[in-house]
Every structure is written in C-alpha cells, then in structure tokens.
C-alpha cells in the first residue's frame, strides 16, 4: 500500500506540534564544565615529538613495495649520468679530433670539394661524394676542436661559402669564409 501525500497530513501535523514543543534556546555550559573537558582533551594529545614519530612510523607502503621502489630508484640513479656542470664550457685537448659531416647541395655540379685551414687551403680540397645522385654532396672529416674557416669548391673553380654554416666572416680578400666551431669532447 502506498501512501499518498494527503494521507501523511495527520502525521505531519503531529510532528510539527512536537517540534514546536522543543526548547530551541541555545545551551550554555558552565565554565567549569568547559575547562574540564578541554583539560582532558589536552592531556590526551600527544607531544609534537610523539606525533611526529607516529607519522613517520605509520605504514604507508608494504615492505615489498618499499623495497621495489628503493631498488628502482637506485637503478635509475645508476642509469642516468647527468653531465657534471663545470660552470664553464669545456674544450678538449688539441690531441682529440671530432668527426664532422659537411653537406652541400649542388644538383648540377660535376664535383664538390671543401677546403679550409684544416686542409692547409689546398686549392683542390677534400672531395665530397653523392650518395644517391640527388645532388646532396657530403663528406665526413676529423677536425680538432676550435674555429675553422672553410669554403666549398664547385666544379674545381667556384668558391662558395656554406649556406648552412652558423657564421661567416670576411676573409680579408673581399670574400667570405664559412666558420665552423668544433667544441671539444669531454674526457671520458
């Protein structure tokens, strides 16, 4: 049997009458009661040290999970070897060389070479080669760390700076050289 709202009217009226009889005035406790209660609360509160120890000692991970996390952390530290900041750029000794790949796009060229201070400015230069006949010429050379000036020689006669070089400088002869900066390797 379901009760319709109008069926609840007598009960609601009775409840309302009961509510009206309740004393709704605020309750004021004697001060001695309040003091006694607070004193007991303070007595049961642990000291800062006890509470801190309890927090630290409270189990949050199972021993197995904690062990796995610790092992993973150690493994991560061993795998990651961040470069030790020295506070300055480092440059290797003159005895070390660094492989450098030089690339020059010249689809119509018959030959491309590179020359510079690293080649004693040999006018024939170091030849580049095309790998796929797509006009992309390249060569890999070993260079000591430092600044190097160079140019490409196209078809044996045309001297051209490197369009991909980060820098160009006046060569003192009215032309421009490309500048290659080879940073030193870190000593292992």
């Amino acid at each position, binding site marked *: 049997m379901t009760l319709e709202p109008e069926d609840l009217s007598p009960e609601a009226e009775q409840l309302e009458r009961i509510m009206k009889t309740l004393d709704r005035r605020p309750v004021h406790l004697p001060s001695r009661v309040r003091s006694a209660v607070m004193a007991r609360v303070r007595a049961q509160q642990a000291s800062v040290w006890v509470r801190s120890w309890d927090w630290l000692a409270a189990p949050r991970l199972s021993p197995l999970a904690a062990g796995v996390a610790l092992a993973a952390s150690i493994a991560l530290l061993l795998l990651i070897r961040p470069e030790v900041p020295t506070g300055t*750029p480092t440059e290797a000794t003159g005895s070390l060389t660094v492989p450098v790949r030089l690339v020059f796009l010249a689809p119509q060229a018959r030959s491309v070479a590179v020359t510079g201070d690293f080649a004693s400015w040999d006018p024939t230069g170091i030849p580049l080669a095309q790998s796929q006949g797509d006009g992309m010429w390249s060569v890999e050379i070993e260079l000591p760390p430092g600044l190097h000036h160079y140019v490409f020689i196209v078809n044996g006669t045309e001297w051209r700076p490197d369009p991909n070089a980060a*820098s160009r400088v006046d060569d003192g002869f009215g032309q421009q050289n490309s500048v290659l900066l080879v940073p030193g390797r870190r000593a292992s």
Partner: protein
Amino acid sequence: MAAATLAAQGRPPLEARLDPQTLVAVRAIVDSARGDSVPSRVLEDKALEGVAKRVPAARIVAAVRQLFADLRDARALLRSAAPGAPLAEGEIVAAADARRRGVPAADVLALRNHVAVATPLAVAFTVLGDLVQRGVAADQAREVIEELMSAGVPAQQVAEIPARMDVGLRVGAPPLDALRSALPIPVRPLRRPPTPPKPNPSEGNLR
C-alpha cells in the same frame, strides 16, 4: 661516406706555395708574430688561403699583416685581463675573430674578467661574435653568455645557439626573441618583463 682524416693531408711549407717575394714578406710577419707570442700558424694559413684563392701577392701580404695586428691586439686585450696567465692560441684567434665581427673590446674584456683565468673562452668568444652578427647588442649577448657559463651549460649547447636562433630569424622574429627561443635555459637578461595587471572593468563602472 669515406672518412678523410687530416693525418693523410700533410701541411705543405710556405715555400711550396708562395712566390719568393711574397714569401719574404710573409716570413717577416710570421717571425714578428712568433717574437710577440702571437699565433703564427694562423698567419701562414692566411697566406696559403690567399694563394689558393689566387689573390694578388700584395693583397696577401696586406691581409696577413692586418691579421697579425688583429691577433696582437686580441692578445694584448686578453693579457690585460689576466697578466702572466698562459693564453691558448684558439682563444686569441676567437677573440680576434669576435672583434672583427663587431664585438667591442670592452665586451671581450668583460667576458674574460667574468670567468676564472683558466677557463677557456674560444667557444664563448665565437658565439658572442655570432650573436652580434645576428643583431643582438654586444653587452646583452655577453650577459647571456656569462649567465649560461655560470649555470654550467655545456659548450656544445652554447655553440648551437646561433644556428638555433636562425630558425626564428628566418620567420621574421626580432633578434632578441629569436635568441630567447634558442637558449637552453631562460636567462635573466632576456626574461620577459612581468605583464602589468589588467584593470578591473567593474571598478570603472562604480565611479
């Protein structure tokens, strides 16, 4: 790709490339450079370069003489910052290079004074010249490099900044914006100023 090693190249003597008259003139300059502890190999390379480029002899001698003066000035500048300290040839060359590209002597000196005497600066001087060539004010470029060095940024990353900056320059970014985007870490000289708080529209309506 075949790897070509410099060991197979060899270095020809000047006598093999220069005519006798030019050789005498260049030798005199090279000998002066050695006497002044100025890098001499760079001067010989400049002479060889002139020959390879088929430059008239008089112009070769003039270029070698000018380069000698540049290297001597750079050496004196670096020496003033660190009297008695050994100077690396690469550092002298890089400093002279930076000066030729428009870096004021004061900024070269300031950069040298900013770091310890034994700190090599060839990379820093080169990048300084690169940034100035790209339109960054010399003092601002220097401060950026100083902060990068103080932060321990590796030389390789510092050397890559000019090329990375070109990416922004190619799309029309101002030099400072392009530089800011190219840095491996934010640096104080280039940090954007704090955006001023926007006025509250409602405050205007209450007046």
